[in-house]
């Protein structure tokens, strides 16, 4: 029963918040913030308690040490996002909808948890949709803004389309194997043309979630239109969850056609990294910029997946963890600044260091971590990814990826240049960010710095992961 601990706890606190929301008078809505965060903290902490893995619903739901760790990672991410969004939620136009934010977020998180520990495509599908649909609502959060609504539309429609395609793939898998359980499907995957087709449809569906080229075009618009915290959620949590389950399914269900999907990944990786970087180079709006950078990062993650080994899976998870902290750091800074000043363009950041040194310091660290500069965790993550890919002998792929790191370094440096090098006549005025934001950013920085040095994190991940051979 406690096997499903994460999900149940989340459901519980969702319900609690719902009830509180109902009985809370309009003027007092803000009171819900603190309890929400505290509850989430509890869930996160409890999530770390040891627990014996097990199976429920005849294998539809399977909980393993790995899946628990993944859920914990997601919990941490969501917690940080909660903390970071406080400043934004307290704003006037949001004060009616504060609890909705938490409710929607939590429900998507529940969806992801189910998705991650799915043992069956049905469970996986439900989790997937549960993780997607509320996000569309969140993206369309700001009713008064066309951009926000537009983002919502783009997200929901493209996701509907892609899930349609994915389902079509699933139906073919069902047709060829006659079952939806991962365990039963795996041996029946023979690489028959219909299954290949099925795999590609499935892949397209997932590629949309992870926003790989050419399924990425929605990303930038949605990221730009949605509120910053939702964007960070999209770029980190839902992408992370999708990557996890994608890896798991590839390594378990489609293990037998690894040769084939690694070829697909090979092509897609090159496309994603290169095109993502090229798009990112000339962006002005920081949210779009980070959107494309996150596309490129997703491409790097594929390097790990293509590694196909235990090392590969480890690096994928490890990098995702690092990426959560780094990206949340960056988005945290962007968020607080856009809340306070409404400025989201790179050249608005000119001379930021002179006025808000600490914020720009965090931003710099985050970007360096994304660019993979030592001694920040991003460096280790990237290095291990390359190692994983090279282990399979994909030296050319690694070389291309390495060349791309230079491009990415270039555009990350552009932001740093704006903040530290440029001097502007009207820089963003100095302001004092509230405690929550500071806490959030502090957590991110701690993550970026510690995870790299503390090899134990990596070792733990390694021992829980598994590979193909």
């Amino acid at each position: 029963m406690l096997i499903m601990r994460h999900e149940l706890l989340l459901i519980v606190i969702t319900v609690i918040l719902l009830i509180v929301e109902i009985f809370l008078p309009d003027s007092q809505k803000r009171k819900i913030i603190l309890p929400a965060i505290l509850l989430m903290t509890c869930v996160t902490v409890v999530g770390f308690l040891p627990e014996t893995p097990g199976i429920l619903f005849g294998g539809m739901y399977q909980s393993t040490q790995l899946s628990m760790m993944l859920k914990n990672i997601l919990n941490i991410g969501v917690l940080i996002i909660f903390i970071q969004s406080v400043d934004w939620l307290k704003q006037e136009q949001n004060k009616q909808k504060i609890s909705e934010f938490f409710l929607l977020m939590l429900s998507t998180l529940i969806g992801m948890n189910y998705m991650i520990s799915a043992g069956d495509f049905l469970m996986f599908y439900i989790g997937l949709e549960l993780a997607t649909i509320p996000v569309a609502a969140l993206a369309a959060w700001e009713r008064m803004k066309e951009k926000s609504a537009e983002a919502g539309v783009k997200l929901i429609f493209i996701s509907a389309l892609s899930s349609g395609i994915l389902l079509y793939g699933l139906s073919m898998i069902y047709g060829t194997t006659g079952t939806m359980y991962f365990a039963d499907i795996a041996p029946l995957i023979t690489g028959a043309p219909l299954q290949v087709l099925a795999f590609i449809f499935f892949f397209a569906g997932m590629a949309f979630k992870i926003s790989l080229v050419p399924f990425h075009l929605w990303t930038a618009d949605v990221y730009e239109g949605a509120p910053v915290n939702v964007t960070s959620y999209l770029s980190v949590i839902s992408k992370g969850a999708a990557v996890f389950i994608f890896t798991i399914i590839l390594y378990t269900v489609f293990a037998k056609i690894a040769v084939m999907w690694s070829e697909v990944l090979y092509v897609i990786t090159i496309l994603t990294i290169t095109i993502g970087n090229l798009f990112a180079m000339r962006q002005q709006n920081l949210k779009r910029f980070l959107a494309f950078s996150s596309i490129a990062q997703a491409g790097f993650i594929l390097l790990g997946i293509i590694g196909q080994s235990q090392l590969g899976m480890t690096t994928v998870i490890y990098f995702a963890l690092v990426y959560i902290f780094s990206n949340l750091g960056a988005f945290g800074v962007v968020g607080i600044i856009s809340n306070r000043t409404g400025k989201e363009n790179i050249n608005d950041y000119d001379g930021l260091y002179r006025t808000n040194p600490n914020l720009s310091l965090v931003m710099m660290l985050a970007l360096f971590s994304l660019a993979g500069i030592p001694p920040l965790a991003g460096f280790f993550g990237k290095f291990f990814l390359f190692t994983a890919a090279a282990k399979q002998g994909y030296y050319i792929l690694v070389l291309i990826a390495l060349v791309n790191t230079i491009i990415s370094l270039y555009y990350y440096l552009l932001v740093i240049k704006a903040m530290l090098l440029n001097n502007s006549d009207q820089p963003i005025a100095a302001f004092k960010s509230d405690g929550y934001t500071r806490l959030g950013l502090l957590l991110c920085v701690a993550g970026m710095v510690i995870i790299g040095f503390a090899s134990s994190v990596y070792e733990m991940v390694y021992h829980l992961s598994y590979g193909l051979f």
Partner: protein
Amino acid sequence: MSILTLFIIIPVLTVIGILLSKNHMQVKWVAVVGMSLQLLSAISLIFLYLAQRKAGNMAEVLFVQDYVWYQTLNIHFYVGVDGVSVAMIGLTALVVFAGIFASWDIVDLPREFFTSLILLATGVFGFFICLDLFTMFLFYELAVIPMYLLIGIWGSGPRHYSAMKLTLMLMGGSAFILLGIIGIYFNSAPNGGPLTFDLIRISKEHIPLNVQLFLFPFLFVGFGVLGAMFPFHTWSPDGHASAPTAVSMLHAGVLMKLGGYGCYRVAVFLLPDAAHQLGWIFLILATIGVIYGALGAIWQKDLKYINAYSSVSHCALVLFAILMFNQTAMNGAIMQMISHGIMTALFFALIGMIYGRTHTRFINEMGGLMKVMPFLAVAYVIAGLASLGLPGFSGFVAEMTIFVGAFQNVDTFHRVATIIAASSIVVTAVYVLRVVGILLLGKIKNEHFEVLPDARWYDKISVVALIFGITLIGVAPLWLSDMISQGLGPIVHRLIAAAPLLIK
């Protein structure tokens, strides 16, 4: 707990101290104290090392210390030094020490400046003491990145452009290096056993030839970029021209040495067979670089450009010597690194001081400075003479060792290359004397300069420290060259094993 760890701990503590200190005076003094300690520990390291050797400790590397870091990937924090790295550490400590004093006038964001400066130094020290490819690479990148901020924020001229160009080119190089390192890692145990990044262990193995041939160009070019190898040197003139004084000093003095050291320690040491088969290509490039840089310097009008091009020439000489694959030449290469490090640091320090007074770096706008600022002028002449390889200064020792060593290769190709490279000493004389003549001697062109002050105490400290360095090596080179050649033993044996016909 070996002494080597100090070289990481001290800078880190210094950085913390700087971040905690109140005003910019305090910042400077913290930096001074930290780097003086660093210098002291470097000197004591040299003495300890010599003592150990005298005591007959013939281990390949001394002061070893080994922590497992990443179990599964077999990454260690593994430090240890041989004669070569000891020499390089001494160089770094000296240059950094001088650099702190040379940047005494920094007023804009001093805390950030010294922090990045010392971070850079940390990277360099780490690179020199580490024997584990992964950690080496980590420190390597750590050393490169602060450059961007240092040039971009405190630089002059087209600083944004130069900083970006420099960073991207160097990181491009390090991307190649990364590929090479990973490649070596996966071939580090050709006959079974766990894969390793351990440089010494790998050097005992024999990596398959085809792998070597694939990896060597990446590693050599990757490090060569930082070593200003023609045609990948163009970051250096712009970078130097835009960088603030201390940064030029550290950059030309120390950072560019990482390239040469890497070529020697990683590319040639671990991939000797490939080095033998492909060496000639890079030898040609290096030879071109030597003469090309020198000739390029003649035409320049900006002091820093002149010096940058001469650095290109001198550093090319380092690669040239490394590619001669014999004990003497390599010994010369290391000594050339050290000598050029100190000498060019001295140059940049002086240029910075002169620029700080005259606010121009164009030699045609200056003249007769000997009358105005005799101390700086004499120091500049000394630096110039050192750079054109005058006996009594380090440059001569290094160059002669290189040429004699290079001439030990019997075949015409190497001989011709040697003679071409040697002819650079004339060209060097030409541009050095040209600058001295126009800049220091003659009449004072601009009467505003007549009232300029001479060196102040902190200028003097940094200048004298560096001059002492070059003169010491120039007058009594024996201890240094012996220390280095002890360190060179293994690599030379490896190279001879790779190509039996080489003369040692």
